[in-house]
């Protein structure tokens, strides 16, 4: 039974892995039949319209048109959609917070976040790291730090603005 559950969850994860979505950044974005601007235009996208995407092919995303055909769209005209399926991410965040009391019971007491052991020989003394008391205070600080969706999107805009400058 346990194996079946594991296999099922792995299958779900692998399906998720294949599915990506790209979203049009403006009106009249053309979807081509080949990764080439001179090929046949299969579809024109409105701003915000999303398509399922596969892999990058050079400067194009391989996509499925709304009629189910394989097509290609310029990477500069779309962005990977980032704000879907927040339910699971939120649930994971909650799970992280709820589990803190357990971690504290499992050997950690909160400590100052600056307590590295300076001057250690990196290769010969790493073995003792497994016997150290975990610095949960620093781990909780990592957990509490969250990058907003807007900031992630802004980072993407900076990256693609740089590519556009290069192409021009």
């Amino acid at each position, binding site marked *: 039974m*346990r194996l079946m559950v594991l296999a*099922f*969850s792995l299958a*779900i994860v692998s399906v*998720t*892995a*294949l599915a990506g979505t790209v979203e049009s950044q403006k009106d009249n974005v053309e979807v081509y039949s080949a990764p080439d601007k001179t090929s046949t235009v299969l579809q024109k996208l409105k701003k915000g319209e999303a398509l399922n995407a596969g892999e*990058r*092919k*050079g*400067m194009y995303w391989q996509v499925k048109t709304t009629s189910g055909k394989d097509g290609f769209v310029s*990477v500069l005209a779309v962005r*990977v959609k*980032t704000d879907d*399926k927040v339910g*699971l*991410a*939120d*649930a*994971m*965040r909650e*799970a*992280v917070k709820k*589990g803190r009391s357990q*971690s504290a*019971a*499992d*050997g*950690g007491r909160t*400590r100052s976040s*600056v*307590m*590295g*052991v*300076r001057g*250690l020989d*990196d290769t010969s*003394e790493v*073995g*003792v*790291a*497994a*016997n*150290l*008391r*975990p*610095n949960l205070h*620093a*781990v909780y600080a*990592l957990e509490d*730090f969250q*990058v907003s969706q807007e900031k992630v999107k802004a*980072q993407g805009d*900076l*990256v*693609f603005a*740089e*590519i556009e400058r*290069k*192409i021009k």
Partner: protein
Amino acid sequence: MDGRRVYSFLLILVLLLIQACSFWSKENPDAEPTSLTQSEQLILDDYKAEVEVGRNMAGRLLTFYGEYQDKSLKNYVNTVGSYVAKSGDYPDRRYMFGILDSDSVNAFACPGGYILVTRGVIEAAANEAELAAILGHETAHVGKKHMFNALRSMSKDQVERAQAEASARKRPDKFSRARLRPEPDVNDSGSALAKLMTTASGAGMGILQAAKAGMSLLLEKGLDKDLEFEADREGVRYAIRAGYEPRALDRFLERLSANKKKNNDKTVMDVTHPSIPDRRKVIADALNRLGADQIIGAIGKERFDTARADLVSKRKDSK
């Protein structure tokens, strides 16, 4: 009892059960959000065990190396890392990035999404594209649950041996007793989580056992070579999807290799990862398949230099 009565009885039983479940979920403040699908709930259950192990491992790394204190740089690493992760195959997972205060060039991915890069990585990288590819490699380890699955696949003997080896380490004089952790007490919730960490042999592995075995993999034995190669291929792919220069990771490794030849030093990364020439071959194959020659990607040199300006200036002052 005839067939119709049995059917009615079962129907009533099912209805009562449904009512009981909905009552429980309303009244129990610890109930999970009901909007999750069954498959998402399975992922979440697994994730709880991952977090417990990963938190413990990340905490030990932070104790061992210390955390590099630069809020703005931490912000930047989290932004780049989150962006690359969102462009990867597992955008729904949680990723938490931190900087370890160590000259050594290395990065660690702990179960649950705790990713720690050393200060040495940020000093050795030349631009944002290189940092993005390194973080892409680590997010691939997390997304594919390389470490967690490796721990689960260990036999009871392997786990006990790894834990015993770790416990038998001689404490260097530089460590104070305060930094060593006492032997844990087994408690009820720990036992419950141990059930989630059932190994291939069917033995329940305690969170602390798993964390100790994980530390041994992170710092001494390394993951299976194929998992490292997979993380290289996937990391490059995620960074390309995010818009970065495809050859960034290759250039980083090439430079690292050249510096090693000059300095002749051996680091944890050398022990726990495949050789740099082997890694570069795998990356070259992946780049060919992805049509990297036709890709124009971002480098992010200015953003990177601005973000690490304080670090670079502190390092100059200390020399």
